[in-house]
């Protein structure tokens, strides 16, 4: 995926439960079955290449059939996407951000699902379910990525403001803990975590996610066939 002068590899990872509101939403449930304990290491998921979309692309809401996972609404979760610039293998927290080329906004689209134990990939891996952009903003142009607000508008109405200041693992800490077990390559994107609850979107609505220095990622949600 070209985002000149940057080039994305097409690999996008998301991070579950890395925002205080997401953890708070599970208050009291983390120690109960099926989870039994809070997560220790970062919990990641992959948004495969078929999910990637640009600003301006339409997101297709699947027809509400049992086979597709009935859904009249989708979740549109704003995340800060860290774009890797240098191969990051087992990096220290102190040096982690030096491996970052820049940042962009990731709209992590999901079919709402109640459970984080073993959800089907079809909730998150559908075609077009990962708009990102609108461009890559170089790291040096983002004054404090650990205190960056991303505002989500649905049809022009502000529905959520999430800040990376409320991440549980800071960007550097997240990169250190993730690269302990998996190397990130130039152009890979690591979405640093979404706030809860994620805004819900219906067919015909337009989602705009905007952050200082990063620009606005805009996508219309369309009813699927």
């Amino acid at each position, binding site marked *: 995926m070209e985002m000149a002068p940057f080039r994305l590899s097409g690999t996008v990872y998301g991070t579950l439960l890395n925002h205080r509101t997401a953890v708070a939403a599970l208050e009291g449930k983390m120690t109960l079955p099926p989870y*039994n304990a809070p997560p220790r290491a970062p919990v990641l998921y992959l948004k495969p*290449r078929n999910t990637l979309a640009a600003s301006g692309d339409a997101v297709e809401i699947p027809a509400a059939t049992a086979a597709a996972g009935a859904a009249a609404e989708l979740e549109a979760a704003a995340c800060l996407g860290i774009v890797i610039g240098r191969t990051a293998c087992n990096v220290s927290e102190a040096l982690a951000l030096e491996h970052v080329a820049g940042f962009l906004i990731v709209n992590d689209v999901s079919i709402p699902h109640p459970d984080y134990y073993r959800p089907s990939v079809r909730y998150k891996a559908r075609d077009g379910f990962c708009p990102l952009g609108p461009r890559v903003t170089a790291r040096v142009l983002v004054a404090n990525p650990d205190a960056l607000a991303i505002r989500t508008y649905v049809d022009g109405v502000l529905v959520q403001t999430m800040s990376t200041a409320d991440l549980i693992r800071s960007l550097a800490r997240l990169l250190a803990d993730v690269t302990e077990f*998996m190397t990130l390559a130039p152009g890979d994107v690591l979405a640093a975590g979404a706030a809860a609850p994620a805004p819900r979107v219906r067919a015909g609505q337009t989602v705009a996610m905007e952050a200082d220095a990063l620009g606005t990622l805009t996508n219309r949600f369309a009813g699927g066939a």
Partner: protein
Amino acid sequence: MRARVAYGGALHEATPAGGAGEARLRLADGRVLAQDQVIWLPPFEVGTVIALGLNYADHAKELAFSSQEEPLVFLKGPGTLLGHRGATRRPAEVTFMHYECELAVIIGRRARRVARAQALEHVAGYCIANDYAVRDYLENWYRPNMRAKNRDGATVLGPWLVDAGDITEPANLELRTFVNGQLTQRGNTRELIFDVPYLIEYLSSFMTLAAGDVILTGTPQGVSNVMPGDEIVCEIDGLGRLLNTIVGDAALGRRGDAKSCASNI
């Protein structure tokens, strides 16, 4: 049947050149080499890696897992891939790391909403996968989590990509794993709970599959713990023998637990 190897400063396509267990290979330029003279890469340019959990009835039972309504699918990234004859790290702190011999199905042609009857038309070929797991790191969030299943160098593919046309019965292939020469795992692809045509139909119903995407179809019973120094050979009828060696932290310059992931929630 072809491999991708590095030799003499370049990447090459290679084919078997005879000898027991395809002991020798021939580069496209005609040079014949021994297996250990080259560096083996995954035998195709790998796209999205789609893996199946618990897709053999006996293995599901081994893990005390009850029947499922839909395939248990998880995704893996490119950093976890490794070629034939590579080394996979076992962290010193873990107690249970195991291999998983699997039939890998390589997509050759874009597949979107493909019906079961046409599914195999989208398959380019097959190879062997060894999809390692470190069970100590398994947590109950988005199972199986990436720290257990998406580790660097823990998804071995190869040695050869075998064209689909050369495998007459993909639903009747014996799988065998040997640890230091001892047979430890055995199964047959006819025992898959969700077979290859169904998996392509299912996956392509919500995600468009592209050439180079690969489906790791799951492993039968017989997984066992492996230790540094162990040689693991995964074998599938018609696809060859995929060798991997387990190494400790030192082989990859790791010092142990200097960067552990303690909870801070």
